[in-house]
């Protein structure tokens, strides 16, 4: 029997029982739909995390003071004083893979303006810090090199702080904020950045010259951390290696001794977060995969019922010249048609669901072509796998008995 006849026979047989065909497909529709939806939503959330992380700068490198050993005693990180301005200068001068670098010192406390106050953090840095951490000035200006040298009491303020302490809608530029008893003149306002991938408000901060924070507020001579940006994300490994080499020399660490600092890449955090979301979507996807399997069993079940119910039809087909292989192919084809058709509807269904979900969750909509191709393959496989046994049963019938079956 040729392929065209086979298709015609199978489609006509399915058309005779449209509603049952639909019910049979329902399992596959739901299975494929949920697999597609789960994977696409997972992918979308990963993409949105990546985009947010990229906002924070994926080529950003952070240097923190690391574990120190003093006479066999492990010291904590928090009060380590291993990083200094000299380290920053050395990196700035020597490193080829670093474009911008800034020291960072920070402290938290209440920011006060008139009757309003708001708990926030002050970050002491240089002007390059804004580029490194992907902040932009909306209004006013950033502090100058001269202001840094002179320990100027100036600052650049984030939107959240402005909303909370300049509630009367006054232009904040030129106003004064008191922080830890020190009056800081607002010279610039930062553009809004929103929450980061972990739900932290990135607009709740004040940035001031690092010298001012270091000397006037904290009264320390070391710095707490170094922020830098690599030439590009791809070059960041080379940049990290370079920074490590310079710092080890600066800190006069002997070969074999542990680093007393810790260099981290923002991209590593991106990877960490996306691996969590990968795991989640894998989990949800496999639950959805189970429902696809159940859908396949549904097809097998209906095909069995169909073989029993249509025994007489099978007998007739055999008596007019249908060979065993023809009957087998017909039933197999019906099963495959059901599962593929169900798969197509399921794909549309899943894409629609993920579109709606990403729309409401404010995530980028991702069409996963591989997932779609894969579920298409899986559906054909399910059709063949679960259709085979009933089809075998149908083709093995004895035409005489089948004709007499009531």
């Amino acid at each position, binding site marked *: *029997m*040729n392929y*065209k*006849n086979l298709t*015609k*026979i199978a489609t*006509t047989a399915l058309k*005779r*029982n449209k509603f049952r065909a639909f019910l049979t497909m329902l399992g596959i529709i739901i299975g494929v739909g949920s697999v597609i939806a789960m994977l696409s939503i997972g992918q979308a959330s990963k993409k949105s995390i990546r985009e947010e992380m990229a906002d924070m700068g994926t080529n950003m490198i952070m240097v923190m003071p690391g574990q120190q050993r003093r006479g066999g005693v492990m010291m904590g990180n928090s009060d380590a004083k291993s990083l200094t301005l000299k380290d920053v200068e050395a990196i700035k001068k020597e490193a080829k893979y670093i474009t911008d670098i800034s020291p960072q010192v920070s402290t938290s406390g209440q920011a006060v303006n008139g009757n309003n106050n708001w708990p926030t953090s002050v970050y002491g840095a240089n002007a390059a810090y804004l580029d490194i951490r992907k902040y932009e000035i909306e209004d006013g200006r950033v502090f100058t090199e001269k202001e840094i040298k002179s320990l100027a009491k100036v600052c650049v303020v984030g939107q959240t702080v402005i909303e909370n302490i300049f509630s009367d809608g006054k232009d904040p530029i030129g106003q004064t904020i008191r922080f830890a008893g020190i009056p800081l003149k607002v010279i610039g306002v930062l553009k809004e950045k929103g929450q980061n991938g972990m739900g932290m408000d990135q607009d709740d901060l004040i940035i001031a010259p690092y010298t001012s924070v270091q000397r006037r507020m904290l009264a320390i001579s070391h710095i707490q951390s170094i922020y830098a940006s690599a030439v590009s994300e791809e070059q960041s490994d080379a940049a990290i290696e370079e920074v490590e080499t310079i710092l080890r020399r600066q800190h006069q660490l002997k070969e074999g001794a542990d680093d007393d600092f810790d260099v981290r890449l923002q991209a590593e955090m991106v990877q960490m977060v996306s691996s969590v979301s990968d795991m989640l979507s894998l989990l949800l996807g496999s639950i959805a995969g189970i429902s696809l399997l159940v859908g396949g069993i549904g097809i097998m079940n209906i095909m069995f019922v169909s073989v029993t119910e249509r025994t*007489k*039809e099978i*007998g*007739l*087909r*055999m*008596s*007019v*010249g*249908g*060979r*065993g*292989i*023809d009957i087998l192919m017909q039933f197999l084809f019906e099963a495959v048609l059901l599962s593929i058709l169900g798969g197509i509807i399921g794909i549309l269904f899943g894409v629609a669901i993920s579109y709606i979900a990403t729309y409401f969750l404010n995530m980028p909509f991702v069409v996963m072509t591989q997932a779609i191709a894969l579920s298409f393959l899986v559906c054909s496989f399910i059709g063949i796998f679960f259709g085979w046994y009933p089809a075998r049963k149908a083709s093995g019938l004895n*035409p*005489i008995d089948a*004709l007499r079956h009531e």
Partner: protein
Amino acid sequence: MGKAIIKVSALRKIYHVGEMTVHALRGVDLEIKQGDFAAIMGASGSGKSTMLNILGCLDLPTNGEYLLDGVNMAKLNKNQLAGLRNNKLGFIFQSYNLLPRTTALENVELPLFYNSKVGAKERKERAIHALEQVGLADRMDHMPNQLSGGQQQRVAIARSLVNDPVVILADEATGNLDTRTSYEIMELFQRLNDNGKTIVFVTHESDIARFMKRNIVFRDGRIQKELSVTDRFNASELIEALSPEDEYES
């Protein structure tokens, strides 16, 4: 009479049911020539159904020889038997065996789907032609449940004609029909036979057998006797003779 379409000699069929051995056919010799219209008669258990199954290439004999249109059945495998059923045989059943929710035309087309030499266009043309032969050209888009019993059997007859078989095998083809409709179906059979079709008709009703040319009576797996029908019924005349009352009933 023309050449032999069916030639059966010393045919035996033994079934094993559990520990019992059933001798369904105990040596049958039979010849059906082209243009024959033969009734195979007998009570239930006489072996006539087994005979029909073997003639219809649905079953193989245990012993003996069966030549269908010159082809020896004993040497064929299952697929070749199916091919033979498709090319040389037409089946008609007591319960019509039409596919439900399928139009008359598609039902008639069915055997041609299993003939890869026939394309879609030719398939449809031949099915329409077969429906014309049984007088149902105007009903080809009807579903079986929209047709009367007689009409359904006509669709089944059209289906048996569509592959232009060398012999039509009918199994109690009038068994589910009332008298008048039976006569109408017999009229159709007589006309087909007049046009040269060879027909083997299994029945247990002796009045139906009188529409045919030969009556072969089976008993206990053997041919008990064979009669030539002398005062053969003419279906057209009988229908006209039916009282108007009967006409009303049908």
